[in-house]
């Protein structure tokens, strides 16, 4: 299972590239990761690939950690470190540079226009993400749960963890 050093280098380089392509988050380059890790290199199985995403979503923290899980499945802690570093390094560097550039020019009309123009799109993308997550599952009970959580987080100060725990309990009892 463990790849040769040359393969590691190729994988590292490929993930550096994917990092720069991952506009909207690492999830957007998921299809290409599947192509390389499962198809081309055979490092992990289809089941492992899906499990990695499920685990990262069910665990606390950013979803990009699914990359660390895949690296771990492929080659233990070293694999995890290599792949997570590769997917993070280019995008974090770029984010810092661009944010600083824009901060230094915040009085510019162009920078102001960018922020004003992108704001409704950013908010629509959040709603779209919620929509895509909701319609993927059949049945109506989970929709009810999603709608309830939406209202509670929007209109009340109930703690996020309370909502997550309630969802876990309802799901474990087989209500969904």
């Amino acid at each position, binding site marked *: 299972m463990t790849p040769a050093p040359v393969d590691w280098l190729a994988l590292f380089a490929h993930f550096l590239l994917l*990092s720069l392509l*991952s506009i*909207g*988050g690492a999830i957007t380059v998921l299809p290409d990761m599947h192509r390389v890790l499962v198809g081309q290199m055979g490092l992990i199985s289809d089941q492992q690939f899906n*499990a*990695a995403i*499920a685990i990262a*979503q069910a*665990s*606390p*923290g*950013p*979803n990009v*950690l699914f990359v660390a*899980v895949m690296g771990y499945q492929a080659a233990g802690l070293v694999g995890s470190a290599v792949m*997570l570093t590769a997917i*993070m390094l*280019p*995008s*974090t560097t*770029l984010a*810092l540079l661009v*944010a*600083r550039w824009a*901060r230094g020019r915040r*009085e*510019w*009309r*162009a920078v*102001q*226009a960018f*922020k*004003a*123009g*992108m704001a*409704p*799109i*950013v*908010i*629509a993308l*959040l*709603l779209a993400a919620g*929509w895509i*997550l909701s319609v993927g*599952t059949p049945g109506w009970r*989970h*929709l009810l749960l*999603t709608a309830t*959580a*939406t209202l509670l*987080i*929007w209109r009340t*100060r109930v703690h*996020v963890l309370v*909502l*997550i725990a309630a*969802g876990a309990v309802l*799901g*474990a009892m087989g*209500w969904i």
Partner: protein
Amino acid sequence: MRTVSLMIQSSVAPARPSSAKDLFLAFSALALQGFGGVLAVAQRVLCEQRRWLTKEEFVEILAVGQVLPGPNVCNVALIVGDRFFGWRGALAALAGMMTVPLVIVLLVTAVYAQYAMHPAVAGALKGMGAVAAGLIVGTGFKLAGALRVNPMGLPACAAVGVCAFAAVALLRWPLLWVLVALGCVSCFYAWKRLRPGASPAPETR
């Protein structure tokens, strides 16, 4: 003295972190509450509990974080950290966001295989997923309040938002093209609406 403000703001956030360590701890704490995505928790903690950012500032930072490649919440952590304590702050916030969750996710991976097939575990995952979707939508509604002070005006914001939602959620067009095409139109309109004179720069993005 560095100010906490960007532009298009209706208000300035009343508080700021006391140190890079403060940033690290705050981002660790919020990452640990973020099951199925950290954005909802980040908005709550940064805007409502710590009050380091206003809603408008959060939307602005999220816009930058979302247009750039990389995980949105990680970009937000970097930018927020950088704003208060430069690159030390950026590293502290990102490390806070990633370190403890990384350890947890690897531990979960190690034990997951034994329990993956258990119906209660699968059900719990489904329930958490449904709630996580609701948290994202609720956060979107909350942040929509920031559009009231947007220089484009509410009707234009609503039109752009509806188009973006339809393209991404319903038509499932590639995000990149939606961002480029709709982003250009929207930013150009905003540019027209902003009073000329303040800026020597042409539209660059």
